[in-house]
């Protein structure tokens, strides 16, 4: 109990004094996950929109697949990305293993299906409702897509946030491909996972505190976005 109290005191000091190590780790975490969310949004939204408005053989299969991929275990993603990036793997030549880029790639693989599946659902429902009206107004395919994305903006942002929440909080994938190297690939979750066992409870606790704050912010924003979307749909 005493150990915990000491650690808590130390942790709050780290946060309050904006400790350099702490800040570095938090910044890398945000950089990696935001980069991953950026790329995954472009990929996921495009794929989601395509699956929502087009009809082609194998489309159902694609939808089932993306839905299934939503629940990919992070460690498995980490393992697969590790194998592809390791020296003997297909992309070994790039020398990306144990770099932040590798972590971004792993998180992209992890959350693109989430953004794709959620946005597809939203856009498909909307398309069902709008298709005939937009066709009647002779809106072009590109114009229809733009209208669709705009009308669904709050729900799409929610999907993106869901991806971000998953990326920032996962540990399995970034640990395997990043290796938790100090000053290079250390992020919040990997630090918590490894520093706890090494006894640096203060740092782990401080990071845990920040992670919880971010998670709550994400959830709060999601809630507000849902309200806005409902307001719009009514």
């Amino acid at each position, binding site marked *: 109990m005493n150990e915990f109290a000491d650690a808590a005191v130390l942790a709050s000091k780290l946060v309050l004094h904006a400790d350099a190590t702490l800040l570095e780790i938090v910044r890398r975490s945000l950089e990696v996950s935001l980069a991953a969310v950026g790329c995954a949004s472009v990929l996921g939204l495009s794929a989601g929109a395509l699956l929502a408005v087009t009809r082609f053989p194998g489309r159902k299969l694609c939808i089932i697949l993306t839905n299934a991929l939503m629940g990919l275990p992070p460690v498995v993603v980490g393992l697969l990305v590790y194998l592809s990036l390791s020296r003997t793997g297909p992309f070994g030549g790039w020398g990306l293993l144990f770099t932040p880029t590798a972590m971004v790639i792993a998180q992209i693989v992890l959350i693109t299906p989430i953004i794709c599946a959620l946005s597809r659902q939203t856009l498909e429902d909307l398309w069902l409702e709008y298709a*005939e*009206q937009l*066709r009647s*107004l*002779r809106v072009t395919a590109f114009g229809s897509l733009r*209208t669709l994305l705009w009308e669904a903006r709050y729900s799409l942002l929610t999907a993106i946030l869901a991806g971000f929440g998953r990326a920032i909080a996962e540990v399995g994938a970034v640990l395997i491909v990043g290796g938790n190297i100090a000053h290079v690939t250390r992020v919040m979750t990997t630090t918590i996972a490894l520093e706890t066992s090494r006894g640096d409870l203060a740092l782990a606790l401080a990071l845990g505190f920040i992670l919880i704050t971010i998670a709550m912010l994400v959830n709060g924003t999601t809630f507000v976005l849902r309200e806005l979307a409902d*307001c719009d749909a*009514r």
Partner: protein
Amino acid sequence: MLVSALPIPFRNSCPILPLTCVEVDYQIGTTVLLEALSFTLSAGGPTVILGPNGAGKTLALKLCHGLINPTRGTLRWSDAAHDMPGRQAMVFQRPVMLRRSVAANIEYGLAVHKVPAPQRAERVKTMLELTGLVALAGRSARVLSSGEQQRLALARAWAMQPEVLFLDEPTANLDPAATSAVEELIIAIAATGTKVVLSTHDLQQARRFAAQILFLHRGRLLESSAADDFFKQPRSAAATAFLRGELWW
């Protein structure tokens, strides 16, 4: 704003009408929903598509408007450029409202039609006045009552000043006052030279403004005649029964 003072819209030198349909079928799977429809829509007074529930009125309008394609037969507009934005418009039986304000819904159609921004605001205002929606301009379109939505859909369609305006039961959800206001507006729209093609199962309404009647029953076009002739002397037994209020689907 006086409805009778509607501005006469600018018209393309190459008119879109007449529309000629020859032996048009529409079927889904093995079910034939429309069978051997042959008729012509020409410029002039409103054409009313009359028929009981499920007769195929909505499908016939969608076919003409190009939302569904015939599975057999041909459908030909006089001008090949009939598919350009703003040349024809349709108001659906169940209006689809975009998730934006009433005014923005009208403006959307104009933007698609590439009306310059300064003129857009002016036209939106006129349309709001004509359909009695001024007080609701800033409200989210989706919270409107279904009657208000139907009026908004009419405003959005007419704002583009189409040459042909398809209206699918435009007064089905309206109260008596709104019905006569909308009917007055439709008559005024027709008077500007816009071809109005309207479906209804309301006989009185058909009498009030039809120039031509297309009578549909179970997916077949039983009559296609001038309104006066139709009401005086229907040729089919089904139409006779319908006029007496005795036709069941």
